[in-house]
């Protein structure tokens, strides 16, 4: 079956611009997570959704970052006024539920480069 997909796979933008990154989770997965991974580091938690609501957004670095999941399926991570330090791979993962016992299924990521 289809796995988690993310678009675009690569995004190059200029400092100060606005970007949107999209995640299509596995059908039926109610939980959706966003992570940021810098080179040589592990994924850093940003936000997770249970259904349509953001259950925990404590990992978002500042108010330039925002994420939505309006219908409980596709999610969009939005970054305003991008900075060079935002350059990283943004990973999305989905799971059947929010229990920590559930396996997370990761997408291939979006590589964001801010020039």
């Amino acid at each position, binding site marked *: 079956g289809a796995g*988690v997909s993310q678009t675009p796979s690569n995004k190059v933008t200029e400092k100060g611009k606005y970007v949107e990154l999209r995640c299509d989770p596995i059908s039926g997965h109610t*939980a959706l*997570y966003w*992570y940021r991974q810098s080179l*040589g*580091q*592990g*994924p*850093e*938690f940003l936000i*997770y959704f*249970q259904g349509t609501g953001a*259950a*925990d957004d404590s990992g978002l670095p500042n108010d330039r970052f925002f994420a939505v999941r309006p219908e409980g399926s596709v999610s969009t991570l939005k970054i305003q006024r991008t900075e060079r330090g935002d350059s990283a791979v943004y*990973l999305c*993962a989905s799971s059947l539920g*929010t*229990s*920590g*016992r559930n*396996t*997370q*299924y*990761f*997408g*291939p*990521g979006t590589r964001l480069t801010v020039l």
Partner: protein
Amino acid sequence: SQQGEEDPQALSIQEGENATMNCSYKTSINNLQWYRQNSGRGLVHLILIRSNEREKHSGRLRVTLDTSKKSSSLLITASRAADTASYFCATVFGNQFYFGTGTSLTVIP
């Protein structure tokens, strides 16, 4: 930081040898999971061990957990070139996942 720390950061072994990676963490956990990441790809779940378990096996993988020392190890036996990847531990508390810094494993054919 609540992230775990893996060691070694990098490991290079010959095909057929065993590979051991360690993970240390700081906070309480409900379970600990190990994931694998091939270059340029997303992470793939390997194995989960609950906080009340001490050892778990899955195929060529063996995971141990010592909650008193806040540490876990992942052993890959009879390694293959296809095992070359980065391996991450993730400590899970409630619904939050905290990933470590990873061990880069290279298996030389």
